[in-house]
């Protein structure tokens, strides 16, 4: 067994960064577009086939997906120019992925596989025994922050990376508005994956994990599956988009007939999530869509509430929400924007990033590239 040490001057392809989470594996792949004829000739068949496989498909196996709309084009990394591809697949498929690495004889490419996320630890041994691959394990929060700052610093094919919702108090008509993260510190970074981590970030390398909650994307999907029989995040979100949570939640007005004036609570505020479900009649008449919507609202509002409290305690006004829970999830982004604005009386601002859940993987890739620079 030969271990490739990361301080080789000329970094050999392929360049991957991987973030193995509790639910999803996020993979970024740098496709060099500046390959010389000489290089082309020297390129081993293996490498070529990997490149072709990844770049010519948008779906891999039953569950792998390439987020084409996120692809970063004409990116220069480590002196090379190319495109950065963003791929995801369920962590449940991890063993099939490792098997594929073995089948394609990935280990013969002598590359370093940089991985972060809990799976880097959990699957380390499987990579070794099944595919003869050594992982370079990286801290997920380091990768998250480095990746985020990097992605924000490069051009997203001329589109803005960072945005907020203008007019957040009107969730029907709030408008996605680009903004800049040029002076990002301090920021409260809320990463919503299967669970949630909340970080106070003061500079690139100065941050702390403030808290976390186990009520995250995994909870939304897990409970939706149990309550509605749905199978995927997309399905759950689709149902949620058509549901009405006020059939499920008990609102302040359901208890007090209107606003609870003594404590200035609006009648439309949720008093008890799933509170109506205490009644058998209501349980018997509820739709799956309503349940999915209530689940989404419950989880989102709770994250918003914890994030807001952390922001106040840490005295940080900028709250950046990332993580794959926010993917195609406008309901949640609007709710978070609204909650930050409403409960802080306009003090706090919720920011979002287009590459939501891929920053850890990008951070892992950056580590790989950094390793070539530091002898």
């Amino acid at each position, binding site marked *: 067994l030969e271990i490739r040490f990361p301080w080789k001057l000329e970094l050999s392809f392929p360049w991957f960064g991987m973030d193995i989470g509790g639910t999803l594996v996020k993979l970024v792949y740098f496709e060099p577009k500046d390959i010389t004829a000489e290089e082309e000739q020297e390129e081993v068949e293996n490498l070529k086939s990997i490149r072709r496989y990844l770049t010519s498909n948008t779906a891999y196996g039953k569950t792998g997906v390439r987020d084409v709309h996120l692809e970063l084009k004409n990116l220069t990394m480590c002196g090379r120019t190319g495109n950065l591809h963003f791929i995801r697949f369920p962590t449940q498929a991890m063993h099939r992925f490792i098997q594929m690495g073995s089948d394609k004889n990935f280990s013969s490419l002598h590359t370093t596989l940089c991985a972060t996320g809990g799976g880097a630890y959990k699957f380390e041994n499987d990579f070794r025994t099944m595919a003869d691959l050594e992982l370079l394990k990286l801290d997920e929060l380091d990768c998250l922050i480095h990746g985020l700052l990097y992605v924000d610093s490069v051009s997203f094919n001329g589109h803005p990376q960072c945005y907020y919702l203008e007019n957040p108090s009107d969730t029907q008509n709030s408008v996605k508005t680009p903004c800049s993260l040029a002076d990002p510190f301090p920021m409260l970074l809320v990463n919503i994956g*299967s669970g949630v981590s909340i970080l106070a970030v003061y500079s690139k390398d100065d941050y702390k994990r403030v808290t976390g909650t186990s009520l995250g994307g995994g909870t939304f999907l897990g409970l939706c599956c149990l309550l509605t029989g749905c199978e995927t995040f997309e399905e759950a979100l689709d149902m949620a988009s058509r549901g009405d949570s006020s059939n499920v939640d008990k609102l302040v007005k359901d208890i007090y007939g209107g606003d609870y004036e003594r404590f200035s609570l609006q009648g439309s505020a949720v*008093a008890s999530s*799933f509170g*109506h479900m*205490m009644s058998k009649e209501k349980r018997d008449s509820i739709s799956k869509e309503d349940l999915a919507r209530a689940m989404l609202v419950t989880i989102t509002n709770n994250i918003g*509430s914890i994030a807001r*409290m952390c922001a106040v305690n840490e005295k940080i006004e900028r709250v950046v929400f990332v993580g794959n829970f926010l993917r195609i999830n406008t309901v949640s982004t609007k709710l978070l924007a609204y909650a930050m604005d409403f409960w802080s009386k306009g003090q706090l601002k919720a920011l979002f990033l287009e590459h939501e859940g891929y920053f850890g993987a990008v951070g892992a890739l950056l580590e790989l590239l950094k390793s070539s620079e530091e002898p």
Partner: protein
Amino acid sequence: MSTSKMAAGCERVDSGHSMDKSITLPPDEIFRNLENAKRFAIDIGGSLTKLAYYSTVQHKVAKVRSFDHTAKETEGDPLYEISMQEEMSARLHFIKFENAYIETCLDFIKDHLVNTDTKVIKATGGGAHKFKDLIEKKLKLRVDKEDEMTCLIKGCNFVLRNITHEAFVYVKHADSEFRFQNTHPDIFPYLLINIGSGVSIFKVESEDTFERVGGSSIGGGTFWGLGALLTKTKRFDELLQLASKGQHTNVDMLVKDIYGGSYGSLGLTGDLIASSFGKSATPDKEFSKEDMAKSLLHMISNDIGQLACLYARLHNLTRVYFGGFFIRGHPVTMHTITYSINFFTKGEVQALFLRHEGYLGTIGAFLKGAEEDNPNQYSWGENYAGSSGLMSTSPDLNPMQRARSGTFDMLEMDRLERQLVNLPLLQDPSSYIPDTVDLSEDALAREYWLYCFEEALDGVVKRAVASQPDLPEAAERAEKFRHKYQHKLQTLRHQPFAYGSLTVRSLLDTREHCLNEFNFPDPYSKIKQGENDMALKYFQKAVKSLGELSWEQRQFALVRGLLAGNVFDWGAKAVSDVLESDPEFGFEHAKLQLEERPWLVDAYDQWLERLKGPPHKCALFFVDNSGIDIILGVFPFVRELICRGTEVVLASNSSPALNDVTNSELQILTERIAAMDLVIQSAVKEDRLTLVQSGSSSPCLDLSRLDKVLAGVVRERHVDLVIIEGMGRAIHTNYYAILSCESLKMAVIKNSWLADRLGGKLFSVVFKYEVPPGHKTTTLDHVPVTPS
């Protein structure tokens, strides 16, 4: 009468509480003193109704009155006469029962409400609206709604201020699951987290200043609603039952499921939940009801705990109380909330729960309606005889008791005649604990004392009957007393935590409450009278013989006399045996029984040294027994202090307890002694000897609940010496009390078990003289060491 029995279990409600169909309770045991009831309040929740009313209770009190001694005295005439009088006192009644009984209960109240001019009933709680018409129809009272949360906070302030050991920390696997907190002199500020269907978080800064600082929609309703959807289980407590049997790790995604182990660099252990229900996002797996319920319980408890911590930190508060139906005595939720708070604050904040949490709303509503009576200007005390006490959380412990009290639960509070405050001389009022041993945590001691009180019951009953020779039904009443107290002892055997920490003091106080309940206000009145008479005859002789001693001999004789006097204590088992069989057991004899020096705790040398220095400005003396103790022990000692130039304040009980001298008895005794002794006479006349009430009617002493007048006198007179005498006041309580001035704690140990515990023997002497650290006294340069 058809309404005199209520058959429980006539219907079941969709609630979290079970009813035993076989239980029948006589409502007159529940709705007591209805004849004089006024100022009703009712709090109707989702499943339980809590009713409150105020009543006046007529009961007997023993009064002493001095005979006219200007007439020529005849040998054998008693010193004073004792009479029984009827007095009225104020009591608050709180009763909790299931909503299913509401109509039956209202009928009973209507039938028995005779003397009331009440027109309004204050109402709160979510169900108040639903039952409004029924209440108005049945009781002919106008329902006046009060804000639920305001009532809750008012009630919380009231119980925190007036009920000792109201708040507790829950420790699941400890010997005693409840760790009661001392009643803090200043209850504000605190955070109250009410977990009903949603969560409300209140910051309470004073009686009238509070604010809803936050909340969450994820609460008890979420657990119930989502739980019912997931498990098809309808009832809240069945869901909790399911949860207590489940394994959340089958449903939740743990850190180790993601990492394969712990996330070391962040200090996240592998067992931590990374994503609640994270494993259930799969179509091809079945999950058990138990596992899902458990996961849900963890998810919600952790979430609430986290929010509570964030608010506690934001407002810089460490006292956080939890209430609401999600908590209400459920060990499962108290445990998960406690766990969560510990996790998120790393132990900096403790989750506190309340013994009377379920009553807060109705107490608050009642107080709103009683504002013109200004109930907050009084001190109130929990009546142990009339209150059910906290039930065991473990269903296998005494299941009958639990089922019975799950149906009806009562709390009675007596309005105390005196307003009670801290002794201003407590070094640190917030850490002061009156009781020396917590019997709820000391199983051996608990066993012994429960046995001891059971053994003594016959004697108490006998003396109670003997104290009322003119009343033929006294024997029957005494039997009722026996039954009640025996039942209390049984309850306490199973649930030592029923009224807070179990202590010798609480056992004694419970007995006093039960005696009063059955109109035996002072079983020892005759005995005290006889002893006082006898002792007075010896007073002059005793003073004379002391006068013949040298200064140093006299100081020792005074201390020894005081200790010997303290042997005469009917409350102590060893002595009551002797006294009963041999009434001639005399003062001199007692001195011979005393342990020779060095005593078990012996700071006499330091005390003597101190006496060689300048006199104290003023001594506050908490006295103990009647008869020989007060007359031949305390008075000569006090006389010497007065002669030294020290003012003396004698603090005695406001109402009777055992053979302790009461304030009114002491007034008569002081008059009589003043008539014989010029030193005492001029001291009384010149106000250098003052009598005050302690505000207590216990054989023990709680220095945090003393008569406000006493506290004023202490400040005015600049008391610089506190003397506490007797086993109840100086050993069972206050043994470790730290005062900000010099103190003497003196007692003879008249209980062989206790003597054994303290490493001594029967009639061992404790003579503790303490000087606070850094305190300047003239000749004293070291502080005696407390024995272990």
